[in-house]
Structure formats: structure tokens, C-alpha cells
């Protein structure tokens, strides 16, 4: 596939990945979000869902491209989609910090408009003990935050020059943590829903299939490796 086609496809991939955010913004500006009974919960679930779906999409690339050499070019989109997973996960975290935790965003925005930028920090000083308390006490926040930290590490080390500086082996070792992030994200989902609610089962099934596909591939590779030719000494 030519460089230009890849470039065009990447532009389209960017548009597709940014589309959910644009939809959310449209939802806000059109006034539909105000009509939602609990807009903060809506934004929290929206960004969380997309972070998870993007992460699964990036995890799907490797097993998919192994299906046929004709779609080997898919690998060029793995980093892009992975970075969008981090992007939506960061929006999800920001929603928790600035909309969920008690941080009074409307007042802060009004304060900035009226020339009191200090309110940004004042408000933060007020809510961070709550947030810290939450992080220390709640395991579903701990596991979700862990997933975000992993994605942060992978995002920071994603540029090619850092990969070269780290050396391929080390880089690959670090980036295998993406599986841990995927598992942590799904556990985060299970731990936050109420007993008896099974909505996370679909993403769980997808994650399990993607992980099994990898296991099956490496097993198949081990057994199909050509045997060393047996050299029998002839005397």
C-alpha cells in the first residue's frame, strides 16, 4: 500500500476516532445533554465506554492482521488507536476529577470570566482530599487508575525515537503491559456495576477472545516450528 493511501487512511482514522468526542460536544451544544437526567453520569459512561472500546480495537489489530498477509498494513494503525484509547481514558479521568468529585466547574468558569483565575487552584485544594480519600478507599478506582497509568506510560513511550532509544526488546516488554491495562479496565467496569448487573459481559467476551487469539497463535507457532534436522552420525 502506497504511502499516500496510508496517509489518507490515517486521516480518516483520526476523524473516526475523534467523532465520538465531536458527538459529545454536539450533544452539549445542541442542549440535548442538559435534558439528560444526569449529564455528569452520561459523560462519565460515554468517555469510559469509548476508552474501553478504543483499547479493545487497538488490541484487535494484531490478531486481525495475522489472519491474512494482505491486511498486514493494519499494524500502522495500532499506535493511533491506542493513543486515542489513552485520550478517552484521560477524558474519563478528567470527568471524574472535575465533574464528579465535587469540583465546582460552573463556579470556577464563572470565576475565571470575572477575573479570578486563582479559583482554579482554590477549588482543587478543596476537593483533592476527597479524591485522595476515594483513591485510597475504593478498589474500583484503584484498578481504573492503574489502567490509566499504564496507558500513560505507553503513550509517553510511543514515539519512534523513544522506542529506538529504549531498544526494541525493552520497549516490547513495557508495551506488553497493554494486556494488563485491558484486564484492569474490564475489572474496573465489573467492580463499579451493581450486583446482578451484567452489562460488562460484552467487553469481557471481546477481551477474552482477543487474549485467547494471542495464546492460540503463540502455541501454534511453537508446535509448527520446523524441527531441527536430526544429524545422525554414521560410523
Amino acid at each position, binding site marked *: 500500500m502506497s504511502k499516500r493511501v496510508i496517509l489518507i487512511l490515517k486521516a480518516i482514522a483520526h476523524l473516526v476516532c475523534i467523532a465520538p468526542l465531536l458527538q459529545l460536544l454536539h450533544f452539549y451544544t445542541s442542549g*440535548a445533554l442538559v435534558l439528560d437526567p444526569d449529564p*455528569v453520569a452520561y459523560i462519565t459512561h460515554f468517555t469510559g465506554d469509548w476508552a474501553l472500546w478504543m483499547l479493545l480495537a487497538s488490541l484487535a489489530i494484531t490478531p486481525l492482521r495475522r489472519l491474512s498477509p494482505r491486511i498486514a498494513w493494519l499494524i500502522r494503525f495500532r499506535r493511533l488507536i491506542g493513543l486515542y484509547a489513552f485520550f478517552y481514558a484521560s477524558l474519563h479521568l478528567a470527568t471524574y476529577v472535575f465533574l464528579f468529585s465535587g469540583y465546582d466547574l460552573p463556579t470556577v468558569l464563572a470565576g475565571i470570566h470575572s477575573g479570578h483565575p486563582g479559583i482554579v487552584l482554590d477549588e482543587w485544594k478543596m476537593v483533592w482530599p476527597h479524591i485522595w480519600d*476515594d483513591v485510597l478507599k475504593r478498589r474500583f478506582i484503584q484498578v481504573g487508575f492503574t489502567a490509566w497509568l499504564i496507558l500513560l506510560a505507553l503513550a509517553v513511550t510511543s514515539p519512534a525515537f523513544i522506542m529506538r532509544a529504549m531498544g526494541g526488546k525493552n520497549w516490547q516488554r513495557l508495551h506488553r503491559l497493554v494486556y494488563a491495562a485491558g484486564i484492569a479496565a474490564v475489572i474496573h467496569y465489573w467492580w463499579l456495576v451493581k450486583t446482578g448487573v451484567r*452489562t460488562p459481559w460484552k467487553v469481557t467476551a471481546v477481551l477474552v477472545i482477543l487474549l485467547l487469539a494471542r495464546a492460540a497463535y503463540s502455541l501454534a507457532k511453537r508446535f509448527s516450528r520446523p524441527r531441527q534436522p536430526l544429524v545422525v552420525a554414521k560410523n
Partner: protein
Amino acid sequence: MLLRRSGNLESAIHSSDITPQDAFERYRRQRRFVIGGAATLTAGAFAASYLPELFFPSTTVHAQELPSTPGKYNTTENQTPFAKATHYNNFYEFGTEKSDPAKNAHTLKTRPWTVQITGMVKKPQTIDIEKILKYRPIESRIYRHRCVEAWSMVIPWEGYSLSEFINLCEPLPSAKFVQFISLVDKKQMPDLPGGYDWPYSEGLRLDEAMNPLALLTFGCYGQVLPNQNGAPIRVVMPWKYGFKNAKSIVRLHFTDKQPKTTWNEINSQEYGFYSNVNPQVDHPRWTQSRERRIDSSAFPKTIPTQMFNGYADQVASLYNGMNLKRYY
């Protein structure tokens, strides 16, 4: 104006300027691809603009007025808009998402409806809803409503004190608790989720139930209860977490033992029998010291939660000497 003076067009074109046929074909393929991609995106964006309609289908609400006189227990805080209070409901019999009951509860049949009175009563009986409605004058009460999930609303309810109805039921002196049992009917509730021990059951100590704040409820916002809000008859105890307020009640059972209640059976660590609103006792997965007040804004304020949801003056004496950290 810029005009090019060229006598001979042929000589002005170099062979290097001519696009080779195969490159031109490739370019056309790419262009088709880009146009196709753009068209798909446009179609996607177009579809996305209709999403709000998907989320909020414009259902017709057959509002039926419920006349009432103003009661004395009213908060003056801003009321939650009617549309939000009727599209954000935990009524698991109609689906586990909070948007589900508004979509699904139209299958609930609220007439004919009777309420059975069983257990430790002078005379077990079955009472028709019309008789219950007319038994006492309907008053309106604007209550704070605090969900165990850390969001809250301000809702005007219509009904009369549960104590009046309990007196009609004539419980025996030995009765110490009252249990509320909600309707379960697979035919009317096709989305009834598995994994729960239906019917939904809630309960109160009898002295709690006799507190004048406990409201036997038939309406909200001046009209007959919408199905998703627990039509045709429910209870509201504003000092307790919302799930205590059993909906669509078909039976009151009087007993001397603490009755089994649905959420307490599912997860007793997260949902106690008492479940009084208490900012000092956290839910295992989140703090109960704050709540998100559902109002008409896009980014509602998070406000501190009050002990007994601000009704301590009326109800705190019910729990004198009780360790509320243990009996949460």
C-alpha cells in the same frame, strides 16, 4: 488579470507533465476511496444528529391530574424537572438501566389493582385501589429524594401519611414490622432481569412506618404517578435511601420478625435494612457524604449530604441509642 501568452499549446506541455495512464487510474481509485470515506462519515454524522431522539424517544404521556391540598412538609429547594424525575428511575422490573423504566413501563396495567393485607392483622383483607385513594384527602409534599447511588432530586409527591393506611389495616399489637411487596408479572414485565429474587420486597419497623413523614404515594408533580415512578401506589420515606421506597405495591405484610428485603438479600454489605441517609457511613464503593443534585443544569452541583437527608428533627428519635454505623 494574469493571462498566459502561448502561441503553441502543444509545445508548452512537456511529456513529464502528462500523467501516465496507470497513475491516473490509481489516483481515481484513491479519490473514489476518499469520497466514499467522506460520504460514510457524513452519513455517520447525520445519523449521530438523530441520536438524541433515540435516547429520548418522544413518548406521549397521558397525564392525569391528581388534585391535592398543600401539605406541611415542604422543602423550598429548586424542584427537579418533571422530565428528569420520570426518565431516571431505578425500577429493575423494567430493566436495569435508569433510562429503561421510562421506555418499558407502559406495559404495566394499573387498573384493576388491589392491595392485599396479610400477616399479623385483625382481619386479612384485599382492598381496591379506588377505595385506598379515597380513604384520606390527598396532600402534596415536596421532599428531598436521596438515591443510594449518591445523586438526589427534589420531587413534589401526592398522597397521605402511611400511618393512616396502617391504622385501616389494623395490625395486631404483636406486629413489629411491615413488609411491602411489589408486583411481579412476567407478562407485564418482559424485561424482568434474572438473578434477583422477585418480587421486590422492602420493609420498615412499624414505628418508622407510623412516622408522619412516611407517605403512601399515588402521584407526583400534581398528576397520577407515571408507571415508571411506581404506579399506582408506592411509599416514600424521604429520610431513607430511595430503594426503600417500594413501587407498585400489591401487598402489605405485617410480621414480628425483620422481613427479608431485596437489596439487603443481594448484598447486605452495600444495602442495610435501615438504609437511613447517613453521610458518615460510606457505601463500600463511594462516599455518601456528598450528592449530585439533579436539577435543570448540564453540570449540577455536588452538595453535602445531610443526616437523615435533612429530616433529623422528625425522625432522629426513632433511632435513639442505636449504633447507626452498625445498623446502616
